[in-house]
């Protein structure tokens, strides 16, 4: 228990650390908001992706079955299905309620990225064999539609524009926009360096890209540049707040940065992880953001520090010294998992 102090006007961010993984966390994704809250899936090099309650970080279950590092993980909107991409040359679809494996989709090389359409009927995969694949989940035996074109390993593949188009980022330093029907690339963005991450924000059709120390925002339909922001360190992942007030970014200096989207001003930065940050995402309600790190942990961070939400409790001056039936305790921000 901490000493009782007068309520200060500035609260120090206390991230919630989710332990359990034994190797670096390389990808994470939130579901939409469901009647049971929202959920978070984490992809880890230990081969065991985990499902957590999104607002508390409480572990719900581990998807067991992959035989290699899991590079990508995603949930469908209502968190009834999960999909994972792994180094064992398979993508798997899971029942996210029971944890059972539903489908194994064999590939010819490491799979890096998986993405459901809005109706959860199709799964897009991409990986080291440089080919985008679209699987019809109602006909899993049928061969997938294949879209070749990239000249290096695909890192991320996402549906966009109402699932009519596909965005893909690859080691060939391009981002390509594909038309689903024609299966042709309609636009290509080229960079001097490999893109480290890509996030698609459907509401507003914004694409968030990171490369080097840059966080860049593009119109997802035209691939026109909206703005870029330079961070103090190499950035591996960034995420835009649903209301588009803020964006957060994390990278090789282990810190999380929070920026004002309109002014591009750096607002806050937080230490906490013990290794590079590989992925960061805002929750669907924007109240928190989750980060995954080389240190094997996920951390949940408050957007509005000090607000009562999830496991965070706002302590008012009149509460201090009063009889409280709840156990309240403060934790140092840099606790080890």
């Amino acid at each position, binding site marked *: 228990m*901490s000493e009782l*102090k007068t*309520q*200060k006007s*500035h*609260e*120090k*961010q*206390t991230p*919630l*650390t*989710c*332990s*359990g993984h034994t190797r670096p966390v390389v990808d994470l994704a939130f579901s939409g908001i469901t009647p*049971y809250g929202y959920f978070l899936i984490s992809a880890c090099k230990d081969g065991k992706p*985990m*499902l*957590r309650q999104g607002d*508390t*970080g*409480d*572990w*719900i*279950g*581990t*998807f*067991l*079955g992959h*035989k290699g590092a899991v590079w990508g993980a995603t949930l469908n909107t209502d968190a*009834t299905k999960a999909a994972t991409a792994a180094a064992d040359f398979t993508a798997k679809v899971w*029942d996210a*309620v*029971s*944890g059972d494996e539903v489908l194994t989709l064999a590939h010819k090389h490491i799979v890096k990225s998986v993405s459901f359409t809005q109706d959860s009927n199709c799964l897009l995969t991409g990986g080291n064999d440089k080919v985008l694949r679209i699987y019809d989940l109602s006909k899993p035996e049928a061969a997938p539609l294949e879209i070749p074109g990239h000249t290096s390993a695909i890192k991320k593949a996402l549906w966009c524009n109402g699932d009519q188009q596909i965005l893909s980022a690859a080691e060939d330093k391009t981002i390509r926009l594909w038309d689903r029907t024609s299966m042709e690339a309609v636009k290509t963005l080229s960079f001097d360096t490999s893109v480290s991450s890509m996030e698609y924000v459907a509401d507003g059709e914004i694409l968030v890209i990171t490369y080097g120390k840059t966080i860049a925002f593009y119109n997802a339909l035209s691939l026109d540049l909206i703005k870029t922001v330079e961070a103090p360190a190499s950035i591996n992942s960034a995420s835009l707040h649903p209301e588009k007030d803020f964006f957060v970014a994390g990278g090789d200096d282990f810190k999380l940065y929070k920026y004002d989207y309109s002014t591009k001003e750096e607002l806050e930065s937080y230490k906490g992880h013990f290794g590079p940050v590989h992925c960061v995402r805002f929750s669907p309600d924007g109240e928190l953001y989750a980060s995954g790190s080389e240190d094997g942990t996920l951390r*949940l961070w*408050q957007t509005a*520090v*000090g607000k009562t939400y999830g*496991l*965070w*409790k*706002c*302590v008012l001056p009149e509460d201090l010294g009063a009889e409280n039936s*709840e*156990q*309240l*305790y*403060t*934790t*140092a*921000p840099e606790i080890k998992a």
Partner: protein
Amino acid sequence: MTTPVSVLRLPRGPDPNSRGFDPSSPRFIALCAASIPTSAASAADPARLQEEQRARSVLRESFLRCLLSMSNKRVQFHMYEKVKVEATFGASDIDVLNFQVSDLQTPIGVQKEALIRCQDVISYCFEV
């Protein structure tokens, strides 16, 4: 000076003994189709349901007894990629994902202690 934000508790971590997905959670109960195929039908006949549950119980029990009787016996495992190995069976984990075995005879030598991944096994046989 800033004070750290208070938290009610830390996020719960994984259960070391299970893969989770608690079947008694409200979400599971609401969303999971019952595993018994007959019960999925809206007009489920209670008698058929009971019969099916009994059959499942019998099968489950005989499987568990089979595992028990394998204890400390030499078992031949037929696995994918035309692999056939023999080992002394020790135990299974709770989800039947791995078998703990000793003196595993492989084409490249004898492994004193090993774990065999159940999903790699096609069939196994042993003398009762």
